[in-house]
């Protein structure tokens, strides 16, 4: 990369770590939601209040 490797790879690295992180967090949210829906005790709770 002509001496600019840290900047170029750093840029692409940050991009894909953030996009990958967003996808992973979404998948976790989906999984948690499915768990809550199958558990009647948790299903009645407000997810917003639960997070706080």
């Amino acid at each position, binding site marked *: 990369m002509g001496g600019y490797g840290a*900047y170029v790879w750093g840029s692409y690295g940050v991009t894909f770590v953030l996009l990958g992180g*967003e996808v992973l967090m979404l998948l976790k949210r989906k999984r948690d939601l499915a768990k809550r829906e199958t558990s009647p005790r948790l299903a009645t709770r407000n997810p917003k209040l639960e997070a706080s």
Partner: protein
Amino acid sequence: MSVRSINWYKYAAPANFYPLAGKMIPSLTGITAVLFIMGLYLSFFVAPTDFQQGEAYRIIFIHVPAAWMGMFLYVLMAVYAGLGWAFNARLASMMATAISTTGAVFTFISLVTGALWGRPAWGVYWVWDARMTSTLILMFLYVGFISLQSSIDDPRRADRAGAVLALVGLINIPIIYFSVQWWNSLHQGATIRIANKPTMAPTMLAAMLILLAACWMYSIAVVLVRVRCIIREREREAPWLAEAVA
């Protein structure tokens, strides 16, 4: 079936939109992957080295699409938030909430990649010039929207408060876009304009536009997954949801 014969209003109801979004996500994910692979291949193996900036310019292929996405998604978020507020359309408000996180991620990427490009190009990571400062304000607007919505327990009140902030913040979008013309800036001017021919090599342009398309497809896929989660959280009492999820 022609586009006109589809009853689009039907999909304003979460009960109809939820399964439609679910059907679209797998193909959008596939298209996103193909476009990213094509775009990255062109960016690193086909696009020539820039005669002025050397290899450092390759950051443009991700920096520009990320910066555009940050702005596009903000406008889209504000439009959805405004529609949700004006017509009491709850799906539109849910879409605005779903878009906000992805918009914030792209804006953050544009700030970081811009700083990493600024160091070799200008000798500094950051300067308080108009383009960079207004993009930082865009980041704060996203963070403000997300924080405001999560601080209010009643979702409909949170939607209305978020809509006010999103609509007021729209003023920042033309400021970002025209900042390089209105003020003296270290940041370079627009390379691609609708009215004029682009000032970059065709392979460079192709790589950038393909990565922009990849970012769009990624955003649509991620927003649809998120809005389905929001629908499931907010409409959990609705009888249709139990059938749709099962």
